[in-house]
């Protein structure tokens, strides 16, 4: 066991309560305020996982979002969440967690053999080795991925729910450390609408573990005061446990708020969402995301016990634990010394402060010397020695002035914890996502935000200003000016007094030469999660890679779930060294959303399932269809009755019954979903002429006409019947699915091409409930329903419409038919749609009136050879291909006309619409079946067309099909074959597409 322990006092944990949890099957406990990482560290756990490629044992390196090693999957079954950072998982009673890597178990990992074979596994190894033979990659990949681990997504449906919030603010502040807090205060006092967002459970950022006094009190005390004032401002929204995961164009930011994870699965009210994705539109943005400490790059820097200096301080001061009995510091800057002081305060034996600089800062040197800690200037830790529980000894050596060589070895120092600090990398992620290009700051050896592209500014450590007073001043300025620029001047903040020390400059140290402890397998890690080493970067440079983006992809630097938060800057600096450039010339890789992983649940929100994935549009008669037991079909967003099965009927029986009833008696269809557009104005007829292929000048009031609309390419786009209601007033119907697109198409032409046309369009799709009463008995039923119109064919001919009343309800009645039967389409105000439907059903009871669904409608229209746009056409079919050249006027212009004269649309042997009769009349061809001239032709078999519609027709007692066949119109009677997926071949004969009543006697009767 290691000798880590919980401290008697201090920290921000609640020692009065104990929380029990399991890690890798063993029982542990912690306190409120602990993270999974801190609770485990306090109980001596050092091993948190195995590395991705070499399966080396790994411990905790950091204390926050940057943690690359301590990845765990939390929860069981449906609640399992993989790849969480143990440093960010808050404890709750009963939490269960497992490491995501390590097979068969963490202590004995078969994959660790890779560590011994590591010289055979250089950068690009998998690319180079497993790409041959190419077809085998899928098999290799399976095993490689299994070995690589990284958790398992749950296979059960997610029991939690998620939601979204749209939000708008004047000033958005990312990060509630010292800079963000004062920025929020300054903007809030100006009266601006402010959002302050922080990923931690508490506000305060670095103040939660910083030793500095602020405003005469401790950091946490000062934070509480500010928090109280901010929360009292009505226009301030404060979100904690919320990560700004992305910053997009137009100052649009996405925030992922975790609302219930900290209380555990199933513990919160089921009405609470687990996560909430905020979609924020901000006038001004203040980025105050702080900085992430950089590791130093030396042999064995991944050994459990080697941690970031700031993480050591955080564990001691915030979580009140001593991570070991003895420690040392390895740094190239003054900030690392704080870890030495903190380790002393935790009662640890601090054996050395190893400083790569010749001249450490005077203040920090004095402070640690006062505790009798030996300081080694101009020195490095080139290597370490480890045992089963991690770090045991560090090697000391002096560095040559250039930093490239070891001058002399100074022996070994025993210690269990090495706090390393290679300087700080400002968290420029959001600045970069906003479109900014980070710039290299030579003095601090880090990238800082470049010029702003959007309305954003950075403040504090994320801008490269690392002292507390600079953070406070910049934060206040940023918040006040952001508020002023969004129209809220007058903000103010009294900057509290802080204690500052004079800092000596950092000395860039990108890579430490190997030491005497190093054997053949020197490994200086850059990216802990992907096992990318300094040698890999140099190999990539030797192999000719120059761009950091290419090197990233070749070496996997920054590819992990941590996205290179720790290692990328070191990696690009080493590449710069290998290329003889400066880090600024190499530049950074692109920082992309998301900052930390976001669950799919949060992305989906409540837009899920039958109910909410897409709006369900219902007609006024929907409830009746449901009561009647209809099966529904989705047509666009609409629910349409598909068929109405009776007790014991399957779909075929129901459809056959509905078709026979409609042809022989009377059927009724809810046709309300068809698109309807009211067209009004003196130029309406001219407009219709331009939209439709046929002529509309001579359509008289009270008459209806069928039309085709083409795209500019001459292909059929939509169809429908348009009625003339009065001079200059028309009602157009469109397909159900095409309604919105047709309306937009018409408006586009009116507004952009023909603004001189006096025409107004109004969508009335929802205004009218429409039912089609069809069949030989339809006239009788309509009369019985109390229609006050003379329905005789002499006064009310086919393709005409009249206004009247049906059962006392004002109605438009049209004699139009998609079934080919005598039919009356009745349209009424949708508020009375259900009333009319019920009146029709009552009136038709004596005639056994049969409601029919879309499937019967499809069969009935196919019997008549009527096409459905989008089923029998696919965007490559002209009216001529459909054998409907009669509908194309040669006397006027219309959209798509010129395209009909192109050589391709004009050529013979295009696919044309024909009917098909299978030789076996009971055999129904599958829709989409490919057609060939001869089944035994050598491969590749020439395809001559496909089946577009196919049904069993109960009226005809046989199967029928529509098909698009090359040159089909001139091949009537030809024998062709449908080649089916199962290998069978079905012979069929080409025929006219009209199977029933070619003279149209029924519809006109």
């Amino acid at each position, binding site marked *: 066991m290691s000798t880590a322990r919980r401290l008697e006092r201090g920290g921000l944990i609640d020692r009065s309560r104990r929380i029990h949890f399991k890690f890798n099957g063993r029982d542990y406990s912690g306190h409120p305020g602990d993270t999974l990482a801190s609770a485990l560290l306090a109980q001596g756990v050092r091993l948190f996982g195995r590395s991705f490629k070499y399966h080396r044992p790994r411990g905790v390196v950091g204390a926050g979002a940057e943690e690359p090693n301590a990845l765990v999957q939390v929860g069981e079954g449906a609640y399992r969440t993989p790849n969480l950072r143990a440093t960010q998982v808050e404890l709750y009673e009963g939490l269960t967690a497992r490491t995501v890597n390590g097979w068969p178990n963490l202590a004995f990992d078969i994959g660790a053999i890779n560590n011994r074979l590591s010289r055979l596994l250089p950068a690009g190894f998998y690319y180079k080795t497993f790409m041959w033979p190419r077809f085998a990659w899928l098999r290799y990949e399976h095993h490689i991925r299994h070995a690589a681990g990284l958790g398992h997504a749950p296979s059960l449906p997610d029991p939690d729910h998620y939601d979204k919030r*749209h939000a708008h603010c004047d000033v958005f502040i990312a990060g509630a450390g010292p800079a963000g807090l004062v920025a929020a205060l300054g903007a809030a006092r100006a009266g601006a609408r402010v959002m302050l967002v922080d990923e931690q459970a508490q506000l305060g950022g670095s103040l939660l573990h910083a030793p500095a006094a602020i405003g005469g009190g401790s950091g946490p005390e000062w934070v509480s005061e500010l928090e109280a004032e901010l929360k009292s401002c009505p226009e301030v929204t404060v979100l904690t446990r919320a990560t700004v995961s992305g910053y997009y164009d137009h100052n649009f930011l996405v925030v992922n708020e975790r609302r219930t994870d900290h209380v555990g699965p199933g513990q919160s009210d089921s*009405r609470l969402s687990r996560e909430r994705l905020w979609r924020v539109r901000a006038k001004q943005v203040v980025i105050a995301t702080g900085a992430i400490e950089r590791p130093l790059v030396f042999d064995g820097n991944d050994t459990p016990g080697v941690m970031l200096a700031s993480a050591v301080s955080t564990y001691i001061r915030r979580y009140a634990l001593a991570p070991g009995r003895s420690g040392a510091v390895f740094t190239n800057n003054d900030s690392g010394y704080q870890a030495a002081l903190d380790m002393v305060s935790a009662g640890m034996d601090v054996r050395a402060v190893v400083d790569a600089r010749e001249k450490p800062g005077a203040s920090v040197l004095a402070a640690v010397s006062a505790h009798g800690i030996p300081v080694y200037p101009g020195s490095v830790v080139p290597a370490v020695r480890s045992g089963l529980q991690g770090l045991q000894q560090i090697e000391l050596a002096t560095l040559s002035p250039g930093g490239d060589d070891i001058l002399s070895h100074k022996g070994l120092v025993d210690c269990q914890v090495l706090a390393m600090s290679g300087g700080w990398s400002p968290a420029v992620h959001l600045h970069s996502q906003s479109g900014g290009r980070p710039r290299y700051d030579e003095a601090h050896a880090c990238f800082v935000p470049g010029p702003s592209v959007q309305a954003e500014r950075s403040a504090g450590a994320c801008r490269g200003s690392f002292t507390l007073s600079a953070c406070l001043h910049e934060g206040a300025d940023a918040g006040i000016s952001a508020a002023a620029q969004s129209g809220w001047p007058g903000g103010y903040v009294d900057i509290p007094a802080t204690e500052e020390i004079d800092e000596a400059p950092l000395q860039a140290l990108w890579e430490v030469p190997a030491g005497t402890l190093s054997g053949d397998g020197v490994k200086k890690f850059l990216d802990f999660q992907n096992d990318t080493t300094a040698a890999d970067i140099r190999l990539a440079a030797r192999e000719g890679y120059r761009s950091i983006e290419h090197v990233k992809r070749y070496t996997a630097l920054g590819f992990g779930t941590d996205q290179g938060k720790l290692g990328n800057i070191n990696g690009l600096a080493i590449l710069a060294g290998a290329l003889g450039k400066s880090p600024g010339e190499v530049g950074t890789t692109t920082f992309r959303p998301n900052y930390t992983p976001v669950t799919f649940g949060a992305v989906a929100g409540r837009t899920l399932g039958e109910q909410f994935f897409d709006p369900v549009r219902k007609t006024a008669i*929907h409830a009746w269809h*449901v009561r009647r037991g209809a099966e529904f079909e989705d047509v666009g967003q609409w629910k349409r009755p598909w068929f109405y099965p009776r007790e014991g009927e399957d779909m075929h029986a129901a459809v056959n019954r509905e078709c026979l009833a409609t042809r022989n008696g009377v059927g009724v269809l809810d046709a309300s979903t068809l698109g309807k557009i009211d067209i009004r104005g003196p130029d309406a007829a001219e407009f219709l002429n331009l939209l439709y292929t046929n002529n509309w000048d001579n359509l008289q009031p009270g008459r209806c006409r069928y039309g085709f609309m083409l795209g500019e390419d001459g292909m059929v786009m939509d169809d429908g019947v348009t009625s003339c209601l009065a001079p200059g007033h028309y009602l157009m119907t469109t397909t159900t699915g095409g309604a919105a697109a047709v309306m937009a198409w018409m408006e586009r032409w009116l507004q952009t091409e023909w603004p001189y046309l006096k025409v*107004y369009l109004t969508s009335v799709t*929802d205004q009218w409930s429409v039912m089609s009463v069809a069949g030989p008995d339809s006239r009788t039923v309509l009369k019985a329903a109390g229609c006050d119109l003379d329905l005789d064919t002499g006064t009310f001919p086919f393709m005409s419409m009249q206004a009247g009343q049906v059962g006392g309800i004002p109605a438009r009645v049209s004699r139009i038919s998609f079934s080919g039967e005598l039919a009356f389409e009745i349209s009424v105000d949708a*508020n009375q749609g259900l009333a009319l439907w019920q009146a029709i059903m009552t009136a038709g009871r004596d005639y056994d009136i049969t409601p029919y669904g879309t499937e019967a409608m499809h069969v009935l229209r196919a019997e008549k050879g009527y096409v459905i746009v989008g089923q029998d056409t696919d965007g490559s079919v002209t009216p001529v291909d459909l054998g409907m050249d009669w509908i194309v006027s040669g006397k006027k212009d219309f959209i798509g006309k010129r395209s009909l004269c192109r050589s391709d649309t004009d050529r013979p042997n295009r696919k044309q619409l024909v009917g098909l009769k299978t030789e076996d009349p009971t055999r129904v061809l599958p829709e989409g079946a490919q057609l060939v001239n001869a089944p035994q032709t050598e491969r590749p078999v020439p395809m001559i067309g496909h089946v577009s519609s196919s049904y069993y027709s109960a009226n005809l007692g046989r199967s029928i099909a529509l098909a698009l066949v090359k040159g089909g119109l001139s091949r009537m009677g030809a024998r062709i074959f449908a080649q089916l997926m199962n290998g069978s071949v079905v012979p069929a004969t080409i025929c006219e597409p009209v199977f029933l009543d070619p003279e149209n006697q029924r519809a006109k009767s």
Partner: protein
Amino acid sequence: MSFRQSPLIEIETPIHGPGVAAQASFWIQERPFRTHINLRGDPADAGFTEAVAHTIGISLPVDPNTCASKDNWGACWLAPDEWLLIGPKDQDSTRDLGQRLVPLHHALTEVSGGQTVFRVGGDGWRDVLASACPLDLHPRAFRAGACAQTVIAHANVVLIYAGDDPRGEALDIVVRRSFADHLARWLMDAAAEGGFEFLAPATSS
């Protein structure tokens, strides 16, 4: 006269949906069967605007996203030549307006059966709408006299600030009939955490 049926036929009100703290910070109530008219015409034509002013007493708003009201009628700006008029169940005004407009190029289209109005209110109405409406409805951005065309949960809606409700600040949501059931269910689901009351329809005009 046969019966009329609101689009919310499948939702039986009132519904009491208490939130996590047993509260109801949101209420919703349908205002069915009002007269809805989509009106298009040229606002520069004095004959057009006067016809409207004469019949329903409203000077048509010409500033984008504003509305005007008088007595029981309201007029929302939808486009430079398009308005939504909502008024009482009164066929006379519609007929009268239609007759006055006959000589002009216009389009008066009755859409009373094609859409309905949800009135929503309560302390939490902005939060509930923010779950699925991208528009800023903060009092500084959307106040008395404002209307807007936007989406809620993928349904197109017109929002009208309702300053005259005796229960306090409220909002009218005009939604197309076929989307009404979807939107009502979405709003109840979105309001579940804070609690809601789905009141029986307001039958008076």
